[in-house]
């Protein structure tokens, strides 16, 4: 189930919230059990078969952590980590490895149809961190329901953040947090609304032209088109992730659960290391705490430091997806991190505007790699973009920024003539707005939303507008009969 779906907004979320607080009046355990069951329903909505995987993973890891809590056995810890890694490896990377072997050795290993369970990368990392902490003796005596809820709590389940037991389970246990707090509910609704609007109005609009480009039109893209697609994907992924983080934190607040910030205006960064301190912060935290520091971090000389940095970015690349594009994307971010450290003094002497530009350009170019189907395709796109041979931009790209309400708004403000004179007006407005939101606003999660008339009216308007923007009419594209 997606946050930006009617069933979630109108049925699931109200049922979860109302049921949780009603049951909280009965006893301490019931609301947790209810929230656990609702989270599993949320997860199994797309494919009930996924439930077997997540339930098996939860039970298995809980048993292993129980053993580790009683006996600090490194072998069991390693086995636990290997088992988790093997599961994620099978679902996410098995076919990729077979394809790679087929390509290198000209073999014909059969590619099986493996459906990747939603959020497996998130809940697996979360549970690996739990096993490590159990081994260290940092996990208290958590009940099975508490543990299962920590893993499956639906706001964070399918797209993060990667939460830690020590910041979540104590909140589930706190009886004060099981009481209705309208300040938090208000703040949560405002945050959720902002996230929903970002997703359905901004991210999905940028996504349209990116989808068009990668849906059979990549080879014919002109230089400016590639630039537009690259920038669009840069904003698509930003607003998608930012929206999801806002919605997750907003829902958490409605339940009086503080979900850690995962996203802190990353496009304001002046360097790649700063970018990684602001983008997917909980993944960075995981990689730092559970890989970088155990490997020695920056305490064992420069060479080891750079090796460790490269290693965590390699893991980050692999974690993001099963394709060489993701691996190279991780490596290139690692390289940029290392270079920034090496040339820190020179870098710091550059003008801040230039630092920002370099960072943003580098991140955008690597987002194109992240989105490309192959490294070769990315290289070709970059070469074509920089060659500047053709300067046309097709109507399909311009039209992908035209929202359904365009005609109504233009009529309302008598702008039809202007739109005729400036056909690029919609894309221009979108990009300008995107830059303003990314660079000129404080991160929504940081804000405290206090109830007042202006915020209330604005939220109600935005919520209604976002809700009617959730769906659409999928114009039938007749091809391949």
């Amino acid at each position, binding site marked *: 189930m997606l946050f930006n779906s*009617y069933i979630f907004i109108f*049925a699931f979320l109200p049922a979860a919230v109302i049921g949780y607080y009603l049951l909280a009046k009965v006893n301490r355990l019931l609301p947790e059990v209810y929230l656990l069951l609702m989270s599993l329903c949320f997860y199994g909505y797309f494919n009930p078969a996924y439930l077997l995987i997540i339930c098996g993973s939860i039970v298995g890891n809980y048993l292993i952590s129980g053993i580790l809590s009683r006996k600090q056995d490194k072998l069991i810890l390693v086995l636990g980590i290997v088992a988790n890694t093997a599961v994620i490896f099978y679902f996410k990377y098995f076919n990729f490895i077979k394809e790679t072997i087929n390509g290198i050795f000209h073999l014909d290993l059969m590619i099986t149809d493996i459906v990747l369970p939603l959020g497996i990368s998130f809940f697996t990392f979360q549970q690996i961190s739990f096993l490590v902490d159990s081994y260290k003796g940092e996990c208290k005596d958590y009940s099975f329901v508490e543990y299962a809820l920590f893993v499956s709590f639906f706001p964070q389940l399918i797209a993060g953040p990667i939460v830690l037991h020590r910041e979540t389970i104590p909140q589930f246990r706190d009886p004060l947090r099981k009481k209705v707090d309208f*300040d938090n509910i208000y703040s949560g609704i405002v945050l959720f609304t902002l996230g929903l609007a970002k997703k359905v109005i901004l991210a999905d609009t940028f996504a349209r032209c990116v989808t068009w480009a990668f849906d059979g039109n990549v080879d014919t893209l002109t230089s400016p088109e590639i630039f537009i697609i690259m920038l669009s994907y840069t904003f698509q992924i930003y607003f998608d992730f930012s929206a999801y983080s806002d919605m997750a934190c907003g829902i958490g607040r409605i339940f009086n659960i503080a979900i850690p910030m995962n996203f802190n205006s990353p496009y304001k960064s002046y360097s790649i290391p700063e970018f990684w301190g602001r983008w997917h912060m909980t993944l960075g935290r995981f990689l730092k705490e559970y890989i970088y520091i155990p490997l020695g971090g920056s305490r064992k000389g420069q060479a080891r430091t750079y090796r460790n940095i490269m290693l965590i970015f390699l893991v980050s690349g692999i974690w993001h997806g099963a394709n060489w594009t993701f691996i190279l994307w991780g490596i290139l971010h690692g390289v940029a991190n290392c270079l920034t450290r090496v040339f820190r003094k020179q870098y710091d002497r550059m003008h801040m505007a230039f630092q920002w530009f370099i960072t943003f350009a580098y991140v955008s170019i690597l987002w194109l790699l992240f989105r490309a189907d192959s490294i070769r395709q990315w290289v070709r796109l970059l070469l074509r973009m920089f060659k500047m041979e053709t300067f046309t931009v097709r109507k399909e790209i311009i039209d992908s920024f035209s*929202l359904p309400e365009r005609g109504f708004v233009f009529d309302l403000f008598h702008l039809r003539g202007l739109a005729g004179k400036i056909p690029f007006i919609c894309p221009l407005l979108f990009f300008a707005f995107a830059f303003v939101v990314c660079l000129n606003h404080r991160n929504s999660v940081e804000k405290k939303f206090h*109830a007042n008339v202006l915020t209330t009216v604005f939220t*109600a*308007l935005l919520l209604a507008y976002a*809700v*009617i923007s959730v769906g659409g009419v999928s114009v039938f594209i007749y091809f391949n*009969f």
Partner: protein
Amino acid sequence: MAKRAVISILIISLLLLAVPSAIIFHIDPFFHYHAPLDGYYYSRNENIERYTNDGVARHFEFDSLITGISISAGFSISEFNSLFDTDAEKIIYSGGTYKETGEGISRALKTNPDMKVVLCSLFLDKLYQEKDHRRPDIADIPTYLYNDLIFDDIKYLFNKDVLFNYCYPMITGRYKDGAAGGVESLDTEGYIGRDEEISYFDPDKVFADREPVNEEICQEPLSEEDAANVRANISQNVIQAARQYPNTRFIYFVPPCSILHYSDLYESGKLLKTLQAEEIAIDMLLDCDNIEVYSFNDRKDIIEDLKNYSDPIHYGGWIYSFILESIDKGEGRLTRDNAGEFLENEKEYLMGYDY
């Protein structure tokens, strides 16, 4: 304050949502709730046929139905009416599946149980698809418009695309531009006349550009699973409605696609299984008294003449006319007596053709 503010947000947003819902419910551009209103002009263009088809099936007045995938699109409704003495409507599922056409027929019959004739295409290489298969690759199918549940109607009512791209032009058309109301006619929609400027196949060019299929391509036979799919597909999506409405005349026809289509099937190694699927399907259909089956695959003069086609599958309007006239005369009809020989000849011809 916070409690009041939360309640206010919920109430205001619900009230705001009520406005577009009321407009959409009233105008109902996809005919989900009611027949078209006087004064508004309703589009039924092929891009939104998946959205309008169910509403047309349930809320339009007609006594016969022309349906099927795109190879049924070019039938002229008026020609059909004059031949069969009907008042027909056309509901097309371009690129569709048996699930979709079967569902459309059932929904139409539910509200029009006294339907006289249902004319539908029997597209051969879709026969072995799963009985509930739809085409997620061509569009998001709006299944919320195909059921009677009111809960999922919010996808229609809370939808700014419907509001601004469909209702708004209808409102401005009526109140601002003074355009006449009505419903877009599909009478000759998809019908291509001989005199129309359209790039038909130039046989010389097609065969010059096309690599001859020299090698003998191994033809995959129909598997047990495929055969089960054919039976389930025909049973659920064709025969079920025919049994439920015994007084309705169901006409299924095998579209006379060009030889290039069969060449493509041959090259993909799926020609044999397609013909084997056809045998099973026709055998099942002939068991029903109110189902008539027609095939024109013995008309080599048509299917080998590429000037009849705009692509390997789609034919010109005169072929549609030929199909209707043939059905009217009972020509090309398969019966228990001739089906075996016809299918044997067809297999021999198509499998033995020098592609």
